């Protein structure tokens, strides 16, 4: 149907050259190139991913090969270090570099996997609770409360007993418990968002709840969500370390940064490198994820200007 218009032009207006998604992507990439931190983040995450993928090529040793004689050797550049072991060896004489390289696989999968699982559950439940309110809210939030009150390690023990230990168990348990924080944060924001006019406006044009939630409400909680997720990648990797501390983490032959860190804690005073290098690996990776998250957040926020430099 044609709209009668006053314009004398008559001819159909030219459709825009690019659709908004294309524009978003392009704008995003341009923004990535321009933002210092975005670039740093992207580079870090890329490198870590490459390391994880090419671990067998990069590792100089079998990550599980022990050499009691070479135990606790300092990094190559320190006195007493050997060029054989770039970053030194751990308490069992295993090569720390190779373990970090292999550990990136588990840590990335656990870190990101658990965040995806918990983030998805949390966001959906949080929005649902706030959006529908009443009994739906009551049920979901009370469930969350219950979960908060139950110690993670109790759950972990149960799951371990039922499905046995391993990476996926870990992702499952962390995912199943961490969603609460997402749900609560998201719910809090949605409670105030849903009273906003643009949500009414969406309802007005006849949008279904699904659309309102996914197109109108969720994008507006994204920034908290992304920030939380970035931090939760760290939380998860650390949680794995903490579970290792309790003997519930990932065990040989799988290597994880958290496990390395936890093993190394005994040697903090005497052989700093055992815990410091995996600690650095975690820090740098999380920093990368967070910077990348900041960039993503900015791209998703149309108000964010392009800062040059």
């Amino acid at each position, binding site marked *: 149907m044609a709209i009668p218009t006053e*314009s004398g032009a008559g001819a159909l207006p030219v459709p825009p050259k690019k659709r908004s998604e294309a524009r978003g992507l392009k704008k995003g990439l341009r923004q990535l190139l321009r933002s210092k931190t975005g670039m740093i983040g992207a580079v870090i995450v890329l490198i870590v991913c490459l390391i994880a993928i090419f671990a067998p090529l990069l590792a100089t040793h079998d990550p599980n090969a022990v050499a009691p004689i070479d135990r606790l050797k300092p990094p190559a550049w320190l006195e007493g270090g050997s060029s054989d072991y770039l970053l030194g060896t751990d308490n069992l004489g295993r090569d720390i570099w190779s373990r970090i390289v292999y550990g990136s696989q588990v840590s990335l999968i656990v870190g990101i996997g658990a965040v995806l699982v918990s983030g998805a559950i949390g966001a959906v439940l949080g929005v649902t609770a706030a959006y529908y309110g009443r009994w739906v809210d009551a049920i979901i939030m009370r469930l969350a409360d219950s979960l908060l009150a139950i110690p993670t390690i109790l759950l972990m023990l149960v799951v371990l007993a039922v499905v046995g230990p391993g990476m996926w168990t870990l992702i499952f348990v962390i995912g199943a418990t961490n969603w609460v924080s997402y749900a609560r944060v998201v719910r809090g924001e949605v409670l105030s968002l849903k009273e906003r006019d643009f949500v009414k406006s969406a309802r007005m044009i006849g949008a279904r709840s699904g659309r309102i939630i996914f197109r109108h409400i969720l994008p507006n909680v994204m920034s908290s969500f992304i920030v939380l997720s970035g931090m939760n990648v760290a939380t998860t990797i650390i949680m794995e370390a903490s579970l290792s501390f309790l003997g519930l983490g990932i065990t040989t032959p799988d290597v994880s940064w958290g496990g390395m860190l936890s093993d190394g804690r005994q040697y903090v005073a005497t052989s700093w490198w055992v815990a410091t290098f995996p600690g650095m690996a975690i820090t740098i990776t999380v920093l990368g994820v967070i910077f990348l998250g900041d960039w993503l957040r900015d791209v998703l926020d149309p108000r964010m200007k392009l800062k040059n430099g």
Partner: protein
Amino acid sequence: MSLLEVNELKTYFKTAEGTVPSVNGVSFSVEAGETLAIVGESGCGKSVTSLSIMQLVSDPGEIVGGEVRFEGKDLLNLPKKEMRKYRGNEISMIFQEPMSSLNPVFTIGNQVGEVLRRHKGLSRGEAKQQAIEMLKRVGIPRAEQIANNFPHQLSGGMRQRVMIAIALACRPKLLIADEPTTALDVTIQAQILDLIGKLSEEENTGVILITHDLGVVAEMADRVVVMYAGEVVEEAPVYELFERPGHPYTIGLMGSLPKMSEQRDRLDSIPGAVPNLLDMPSGCPFHPRCPFAIEACKQTKPALEEQQPGHYVRCLRAGEVG
């Protein structure tokens, strides 16, 4: 010395698509006690001009050139701290969007009282008392209660009046009112305009009144500035403008008015669309829509020239049309 002098002000927005020259060399002045109306196409840069004077242009926007002198002092080069002393006190502004311009989590009384606390050093209690006074003056019923309400509990018009109360609270020397009465019914509009007029008279306040309502312009203004696509296209005393509009755009504007006295099925409007600021037409920006356009209009950018004493027009055919 004028109360306010704006010279060749330029404010651009640097966006992903390119630079939007929202205000592109605007000049005008306001005398103490005078009311200057700014009218113009929606999106022509009126709000950005006023925000530029206040130095409140938000982020991708940047004042890239020009001068803003208030009582002779160059505001643009003032340290931030100094500028803050002017804002809300000597110069205040009523924003166009009353709905989102109030902080949702503070009570109305608090928000009105805040300027008084800041600039007049009033205590909390005194400020609130005065705030209620102010709310009554702008015609808010049950002001005592409303002072304790939050913005979302108010109707659009009420919020707008709250914004006006905030702007007037400190009796500024210069008031910038960006469409202050759009959400008000005419009786209250009359009351508000009356209030502004009184203020202007009593305190010798200079007023910049941005509005689309030519009726309001006719009633309030001493002088009128007409803007189009980021530029001033005409400036004249109010009587002169209504009698002898000089720029084809102004003429079109006058013609679009729905009249109370006659009933027509269709209203006249200026054909064509507002130019794309990113891709301005060559020559006179109005030429694609101008019924009087000649070939030269496509090439030559006209300058703002004085036609009559005090009546400036930016048109190649200034003398001939109208």
